[in-house]
C-alpha cells in the first residue's frame, strides 16, 4: 500500500525563555494508507506533538511532513486550514464540540467550510446517536459527547483520522464502542482511511495494525501487528 504519511527528519523544538525543549528529535516515519495505527508512549514522549504535526495543527521546526504526497510543513496558515478541512478528522480526549450547537448542527459544521457532501444524520446514526439529533452537548453524557465528536470527524469521511486519547475520559464499554467505530473507518468500504490513535493505554495496541512507540522525542519502535485482536476480545 502507498504511504499515507511520511515524516522526514522532523524535529520540533519549543522554547520557553532560554530553555529549549526538544519534543521531537530527527524523527523519520512512514504510515501506510488504510492502517489503524496506535502511537504509544509515556507523558511528554512527543505523541501529541507527532499527531499535531501530521494533522497540520503545528509546523515542524525542521524536516518535512508529507501527507497524501503533499509536503504540508511548507503550507501557509490558509492552506493548512483547507488541508484540515478536507483531509483530516480530529477527535480529542475532551470532545471539543461546540456547546451552542445541537448534535446535528455540530456534525453539519463541516458544511460551513467544505463543499464535501455530508450526510450528517447518517454519521450520527453510525455512532448510535440517532435519538439525539436535537440535543445540546450539555444534555448528554461524556461518552455520547465523544460519539458526537467522532460523528463530526467521520461525517466527511476523512482520509486521515487523528485521535488524541479518544477513550481517555470514558468507561471501558464506551471506550470499546468508540474504538470499533474508529477501526471501521479503515475498512475498504469506507475508503481505506488511515486512523492514528495516540494513547497511554497499551491494551489498545493489541487491536492496532501498527504500533509506534515513542520515547523522549524519538521513535523507539514501529511494530507490525500480524494478528490484531478483535476489540471485543480485549480485556480492559
Amino acid at each position, binding site marked *: 500500500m502507498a504511504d499515507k504519511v511520511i515524516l522526514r527528519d522532523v524535529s520540533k523544538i519549543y522554547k520557553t525563555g532560554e530553555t529549549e525543549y526538544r519534543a521531537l528529535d530527527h524523527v523519520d516515519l512512514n504510515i501506510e494508507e488504510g492502517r489503524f495505527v496506535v502511537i504509544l508512549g509515556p507523558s511528554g514522549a512527543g505523541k501529541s506533538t507527532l499527531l499535531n504535526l501530521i494533522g497540520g*495543527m503545528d509546523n515542524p521546526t525542521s524536516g518535512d511532513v508529507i501527507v497524501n504526497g503533499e509536503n504540508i510543513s511548507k503550507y501557509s496558515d490558509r492552506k493548512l486550514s*483547507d488541508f484540515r*478541512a478536507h483531509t*483530516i478528522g480530529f477527535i480529542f480526549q475532551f470532545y471539543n464540540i461546540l*456547546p*451552542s450547537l445541537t448534535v*446535528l448542527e455540530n456534525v453539519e*459544521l463541516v458544511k*460551513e467550510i467544505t463543499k464535501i457532501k455530508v450526510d450528517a444524520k447518517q454519521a450520527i446514526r453510525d455512532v448510535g446517536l440517532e435519538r439525539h439529533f436535537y440535543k*445540546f452537548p450539555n444534555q448528554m453524557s461524556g461518552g455520547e459527547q465523544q460519539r458526537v465528536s467522532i460523528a463530526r470527524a467521520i461525517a466527511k469521511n476523512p482520509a486521515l483520522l487523528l485521535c488524541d486519547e479518544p477513550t481517555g475520559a470514558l468507561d471501558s464499554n464506551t471506550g470499546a464502542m468508540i474504538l470499533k467505530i474508529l477501526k471501521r473507518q479503515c475498512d475498504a468500504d469506507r475508503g481505506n482511511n488511515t486512523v492514528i490513535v495516540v494513547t497511554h493505554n497499551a491494551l489498545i495496541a493489541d487491536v492496532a495494525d501498527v504500533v509506534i512507540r515513542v520515547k523522549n522525542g524519538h521513535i523507539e519502535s514501529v511494530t507490525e501487528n500480524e494478528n490484531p485482536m478483535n476489540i471485543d476480545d480485549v480485556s480492559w
Partner: protein
Amino acid sequence: MLFRKMLRDIIHNFTQFMTIFAMVAIAMAVYAGVKSYGDGLKVSADNLYEQQNMPDLWLMGSGFSEQDMKEIRSVDGVADAMRYLSLSMTGEVTYADGRKETFSVPMEGNFLDIKQKTVSVNRFVVVEGEGYDPDADGLWLGRMFAQARDIHPGDRIKLTYEDAEIEKEVLGIISVPDHVYVTQDATVLFQEAKDFGWVYLSMRYFPREAMYDKIIESDGMQGFLSARDSLRALHDMGMSWRDILVTQLGEMDPDTDLETALDLADDIANETAGEEKKHDFIKALDPHFNIEKAYTYPMVCVDVEGTAPGIYKDNKDDGSYDRKLDRIKNALYKIDVVDSVTGRDSCGSYVYHKSEAEEGDTYSGMFTTLFLFIASLSVVTTMNRFVKKQRMQIGALKALGYRKSRIYRHYISYGFFVSVVGVILGYAVGLPTLGVGFYNMEMDMFDIVGGGIYVGKDSYIVAVLIVLMVTLVTYFSSRKILSEPAAQTLRLEVPKIKQKKTGERPNGLMSRLPFAVKWNLRDVARSKARTIMGIVGIAGSALLIVMAYGMEDSMQHYLDWEFTGILRFKSRLTFDSDITNLEKSDLYRKYGTATTQTVAIEYYDGNGMLQTSAITVNDSDGMIALSDHEQGSHDINEGIPGATYSDITAPGALFITEKLVVNKHIDIHQKLRWHILGDDDWHETAIAAVCRDPQSQQFAMTRQAFEGLGEKYEPDTLYTDLDLTGVDDEDIDGVSAISTSASLREQTSGMLNMISGMLGLFIGMAGVLGFIIIYNMGLLSMNEKMYQFSTMKVLGFKFMKIMRIYTMQNVWITLAGIAIGLPGGFLFTDYLFRYAIGEDYDFNAFIEPSAYLIAFAGTMAVMVFTSIFLAMGLRKIDMVASLKANE
C-alpha cells in the same frame, strides 16, 4: 503566602483587575473632584457669609434718617443695621509706580454712613492694605477688579458721578459677602473682572459739590434764584433785608442771610460758582444747614439675630429662620420710609453663586451614578470569571485543609485591595485635578477669599460604599464554589443540564438560520451577564458622545432662540436714571420708539410666600418678542396663541414664564397679588398668558395693561435696529449703557463655554471608561470563546470566517447598546439642561442628527477596532494549547 498568591494572580490577570481598578479610580476621582468643588463653593461661601456677617435683609427707601435707623434696630430680632448709598460711577486709576496705563471703567461706589465707625454688617475681608477707618482719607477696592487691573494700596482712583469727581488713594483691597459675584448692571450676563469694579468709602468723602447741586436744584432754591432780581430791587428801594424776608419769603428761617445769598445768586444761577460759594449760598439761605444731615442713604443692610442656614446641606435649619425673617420683614414694612424689604434670595450675588454651587451636585450625582453602574457590571462579570478560573486552586486549598473563612478572606481580598487602592488613587488624583481645577475655574468668577475645596462625609461614604460593593461582588462570586465539597471543586465544573429554551429550539426558524447567526444567538443567550455588561457599556459610551455633541448643539440652539427669536434688536440703550424728557425725545427721533420699562415687584407665590421679581412692560414693537411653548416668537401686542387681545390688554394682565409657574407653584387660573416695590398699592390681576424665556423667569405686561392700572409708563430702555457697536454711551445724552445683540450673545456664549468645558472634561473621562469597558468586554468574550474558535480552526475554519463570527455578535451588542445610548444621551442632556443649570434658565436639549451619527459611527468604530484587534490574536492561536487549556 496567600497574599503573594493574590499579588501574582492580579499581575497575571492584569487587564481584568486593571479594569476594576480604573473603574473604581475614575468613578471616585469624578465624584470626589466634582463633589469637593461643589461643596467647597458652598462651604467657603457659608464661612464667608457667617464670619463676615452677610446681611440677611436689604431695605430700600427714599432715605433713611438716624431716627429711622433707631426704629429699624429696635425691631425684635434685628441684631444690627447699616445704611449706605450705592451709586453707579466711573473710575480712573493712577498707579503709584508711575505706570502710564489709563482706563476708565464703570464702578459701583458704596458710601457708608458717616457715623459708622466700623463695618459691622457685610464686613470687609481685607486682602491687602488696611482695614476700614471712616476717618482715613481713602477708599477700599474690590479684590477681583484690583487683581485684574494690578491695583494695590497706594494707587489712586478718580471716581466720577455726573459732573462731580472725587479722587482717593486705595487704602485696602477687600472682599465683602454680598459682592461675591457682581455685574455692572442687569444687562451684563457674564462680568469680566477687569471691566467693572466697586469701592467702599465713607460718606464723608461723597462729592459735596454734587450734593450742593442737588440741593440748589430743589424747587425752593430755584424759586429764590428766579426771584433774585426782584428781591434786590426791593432792597434797592430801601426795604430792609429783614422786611423782605418776612414779607416776601415768610416761611424762611429768621436768621437767613439774604444779603449774602443774593451776592452769590448770580454765580450760582450762571453755574460759575465753585464748591465753597455753593456751600455759602445754601448756608446763607438755611442757617442750620449741615451737609452730613443732607446725605441721603436710600439703602440699609440688616443683620438678623442668629445664624442663617447655609447653602451646604449640613447647615440647614428647620424653617425657623424663614419664619423669623418673615416676621421681621412684616415689622420693617410698618416703618414709613421702608419701600421694600428683600432677603438673600433676591441678592444677585448670593443667588447666582448658590445656583452655580448646586450645579456641582447634579453633575457629581449623575456622572458618578453612571460610572458606578457601568463599573459594577464590569466588576461582577470580571470577578465571576476570575473565580471560575480559580476553581481548581480553590479545590487545592480546601484539600490542603484551609478553612472556608480563610479562603473567603483570600478571595475577598482581591476585590478589597484593588478597590481600596483605586479609591485612594481616585481621591489623590480627583481632588487636586478636578476638584481644585474646577474650584479655581469658578474663582475666576466668584470672589471668595480663603476658600477651597471641601471633602464632606458624603465623599467618604461613597468611597466606603464603592469598596463594599466590589468586595461583596467578590464574595458572591466565590461563595458558590466555596460551598462545594473539596472533591467536587477539584473536578471540572459539570455543566447544568438545561431544558430547551425558547430561541434554542432547533426546529422552526432557528434551524433555518445561518450557522454564524445561530451560534451567536445561542452564545448571547448563554452569556447573559457578559452581554448585558457589553450593551450597558456601549450604551454608556454612545450616550456620552451624544451628550458631548448634544450640549454644544443645545447651547447653540439656546443662543439662536434667545438672540434671534426673542431679542430682535441690534442695539439696546439703557436710559440714565435722570434722563430728561428732552433727551428722551431726541433719542426717540434718532433711534425709534421701541421701549420697555422694568419694574421690580413683590408678589405672593402659590405657597403664599412673598417673592421678589420683575415685570417687563413691553412696548418694543416686537423687538423684545415673547416665546410660546414651542419656542415660536410673538410680538406682545399680538399676544400668545390662546390669549385674546382683550385678555392681554386688560388692566394689569400678566404674562408669566413657564418655569416661574412651576418653580413658584403658581396657579395660572387664579389672580396674582402683587405690588411695585416702593409703592403701597397692591394689585390682584389675572394671568393672561404663559410664555417661555430661556434665561430669565419673570413677568411681562403690555403697556396698555400697565397704564390701565393707573401706572405711568416711564421707559428705561430703548431698542433699535441700528448697530451701535463702538458707540460710547458717554457720547449720547441720557444714556447710561449701550449693548449690542452681538456683544450680549458673545457674553452668554462665553459663560456657557465654561460650563461646556467642564462637562467636556467629564465626558472625556467617561469616554476613556467606555473604551475600557468595550475592550474588557471584548477580551472576556474572546477568552470565553477561545476554545470554541480553536475547535473551529482545527476543523478547518479560516481566520476571516472566525473573525466574522466573532465580530457579528459584537456588532449586535453594539447596535443594541447604541439603540439605548442615543435616546439615553438625549434624555441625560435634557435632564442636565432642565435641572442642573439654575432656576433662571429654561431650555432643553436640542440635538442635531449629526450628533447621533457621530455617536453611532464613533461607537461602532471603537467596537470594530477592538474586535479586529482582539481577533487578530486568533491568527496566531496555538490551537493545541488552547484546547488543552480548556481540558
